[in-house]
């Protein structure tokens, strides 16, 4: 997609895989498999993850950019 001119940002559930993959923009999240945005029904928490993911699109690069998501207490 990046080569086609479409910037991307991806959630990573396993940080070591993200490090190895070296995709352009990745957000490592502290959640279990099957729950990339956190808890079901937690609209506030899900929006916060998406905002952090979208924020990667404002990075000037170059990639790979890998950030860790920390939920607010």
């Amino acid at each position: 997609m990046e080569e086609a001119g479409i910037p991307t940002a991806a959630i990573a559930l396993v940080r070591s895989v993200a490090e190895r993959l070296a995709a352009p923009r990745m957000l490592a999240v502290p959640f279990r498999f099957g729950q990339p945005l956190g808890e079901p029904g937690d609209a506030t928490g899900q929006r916060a993850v998406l905002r952090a993911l979208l924020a990667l699109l404002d990075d000037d690069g170059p990639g790979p950019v890998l950030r860790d998501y920390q939920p607010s207490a």
Partner: protein
Amino acid sequence: MASWDELPLRYRLTIRAYPWRRIAPTPWTTLRVPLREARVALVTSAGLYRPGVDRDFGTREGEDITMRLLPSDAALDALAIGQTSDAFDRSPLERDRNLALPLDRMRDLVADGTIGALAPRVVSFNGSMLAPGRFLRDTSPGVIDALRADQVDAALFVPV
């Protein structure tokens, strides 16, 4: 953080032997519009589809490299979960499809001005894929064509 230790032994053995790819050099495209004006697409690996409308995903684990294009106004609760892997607990996703396809949350972000718009279609494929090279060769051109046709400015990938 998810850990391989959560997975059944057969998955851990598969992962140990899996030929992980490295994207090199890492491609980079800068977002061309401010985020608040951007049209953003969602891509999910949960294998979501509309029963009776879309072809379901193959049940032979790891072999289905196809994708479905779903309208962004699809009823989330009506989407079936084609991802059949038992490597994760499906119950949270069954309770809230937003975990893998956050359409409601993206609409929230359109409403509050974080992004400009949600793309009219989402891309759905089954992430339990043992031949990602075939996916890149045979399926990804169609993904890119669809995203270009929808004039998206960026894409977010949500794995499960």
